[in-house]
């Protein structure tokens, strides 16, 4: 696969320590396009070895607006289904540029390890120094040890290490889009984290046309109904969800976008610092990044102050436990005190409604979405590498447009018929 790809699949066997590489066959791309089309296919191939498959979409890391997404595919311990979770913020593109298009992680390590994926190399490293650390400390350690603050980390905290069914894979310091317990799978495999850094380069088949089309899309989106929308609260309202803006806005420092996503769907709150501060804070850890609207809505409903709710989310992110599940179970148990919620982390168990029933993480199920439309849009986003929330918000990124861009970028003829087939296949409807 020559264009928009590194042309490499890594097969990592944590049990034996073997790492093998395969080329990304162009025929596979013609048949499955990319993203979950291929992670699902790789999952099926290695199903007996309990794999977690990490993969990027065909357009991930390109100039297509919203091209932030990589995905993980595995069997969810919460739903029992082979499912897909989004890898967003900057981790999705870091994987794309790390020299691999897909990575199968199979088997179980005999002792804690972490994967260091960089420039076409996967190293299985001893995790003695990080196992037992919370998510924030582990990220700090890896970045300091490897010597680069831009390393992206997909990792677990104590929840994953201790086998909590609600463990989530975090991205750097923050909760990502994993609401399906993939953190538990990491822990079962004795896999503390995956460090990602890539300085690769993606060739484009028809660069000028591809980039011009992307620029035209940006221009249209900028002047459309999403103009000026920013932050997690406005994102929720735009998608028909509950309005928490007045509640949360006094804490908001700035809004942050995932890679090349025109609408910043994340908001950073300052908890131990003045949110109006423009200069660099002297406080080491002044706040946190909000990436998931659901726990906020629940905690607000429970009567928590915005600050307390954000503190809960901060502790969840450090512990590596899904905040939406914590909020749901705390509400059911009537636990409203911050300290009590934090104390309850080790004991919390499912089932939880927050895991949803779809094969796609309910992280992007905001507002009252039509289920079929939502599933279709998720599938298309997860195949092509488009931010799943942004894809729901924008009508300009039509399937036809995305396929045009995919064909321009790769020189492959990718048709609506193929996309329909791949969508049907990953959705289990073929």
């Amino acid at each position: 696969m020559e264009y928009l790809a590194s042309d490499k699949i890594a097969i990592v066997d944590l049990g034996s320590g073997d790492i093998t590489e395969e080329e990304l066959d162009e025929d596979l791309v013609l048949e499955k396009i990319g993203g979950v089309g291929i992670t699902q296919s790789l999952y099926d191939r290695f199903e007996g070895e309990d794999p977690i498959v990490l993969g990027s979409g065909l357009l991930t890391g390109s100039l297509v607006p919203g091209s932030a997404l990589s995905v993980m595919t595995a069997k969810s311990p919460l739903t029992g289904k082979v499912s897909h979770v989004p890898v967003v913020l900057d981790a999705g593109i870091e994987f794309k540029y790390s020299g691999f298009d897909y990575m199968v992680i199979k088997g179980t390590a005999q002792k804690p390890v972490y994967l260091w994926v960089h420039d076409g190399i996967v190293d299985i490293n001893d995790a003695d120094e990080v196992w037992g650390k919370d998510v924030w400390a582990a990220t700090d350690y890896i970045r300091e040890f490897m010597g680069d603050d831009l390393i992206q980390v997909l990792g677990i905290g104590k929840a994953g290490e201790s086998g909590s069914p609600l463990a989530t894979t975090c991205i750097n310091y923050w909760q990502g889009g994993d609401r399906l317990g993939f953190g538990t799978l990491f822990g079962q495999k004795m896999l503390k984290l995956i460090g990602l850094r890539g300085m690769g380069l993606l060739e484009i088949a028809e660069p000028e046309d591809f980039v011009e089309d992307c620029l035209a899309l940006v221009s249209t989106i900028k002047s459309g109904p999403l103009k000026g929308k920013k932050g997690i609260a406005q994102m929720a309202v735009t998608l028909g969800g509950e309005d928490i803006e007045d509640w949360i806005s006094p804490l908001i420092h700035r809004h942050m976008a995932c890679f090349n996503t025109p609408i910043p769907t994340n908001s950073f709150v300052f908890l131990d610092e003045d949110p109006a501060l423009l200069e660099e804070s002297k406080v080491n850890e002044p706040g946190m990044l909000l990436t998931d609207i659901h726990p906020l809505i629940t905690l607000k409903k429970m009567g928590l102050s915005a600050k307390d709710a954000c503190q809960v989310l901060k502790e969840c992110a450090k512990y590596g436990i899904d905040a939406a599940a914590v909020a749901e179970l705390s509400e059911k148990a009537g636990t409203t005190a911050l300290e009590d919620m934090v104390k309850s982390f080790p004991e919390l168990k499912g089932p939880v409604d927050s895991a949803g029933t779809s094969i796609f993480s309910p992280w992007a199920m905001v507002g009252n979405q039509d289920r079929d439309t939502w599933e279709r849009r998720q599938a298309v986003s997860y195949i092509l590498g488009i931010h799943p929330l942004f894809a729901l918000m924008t009508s300009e990124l039509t399937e036809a447009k995305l396929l045009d861009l995919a064909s321009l970028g790769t020189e492959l003829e990718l048709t609506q018929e193929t996309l329909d087939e791949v969508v049907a296949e990953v959705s289990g409807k073929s």
Partner: protein
Amino acid sequence: MGIKIDGLLCTACMACELACGYHRDDAFALLSSCIVPYRGREKKNYLGVMLKEEDSLVAARPEGIEINRIGEEQDPDKEADASAKPMLLRESCDLCEDLDDGPLCIRVCPVDAISVE
């Protein structure tokens, strides 16, 4: 004529960095861009944009613009920070002089944080 950046508007989406990398390499890559959102202080959420021009390094911080002339001594009392001396060996901004519609970073920025002055 030069690039003007509002560091406070920036959402660190990196579209400008990727577009600039494309301008340099005719492919998608980030290593040769002369415009780089600074993402290194993630826990503090302190971010801005750095731009390498012909004879200066522009640090568009949230609190305002700082221009460091390349080769001139910095204020020794000023606390060193990551945007003080970046990417000296990268090529400087040429305002995408080969493109009729102007610099790519401006066209690709979704929040209009970049303009030309």
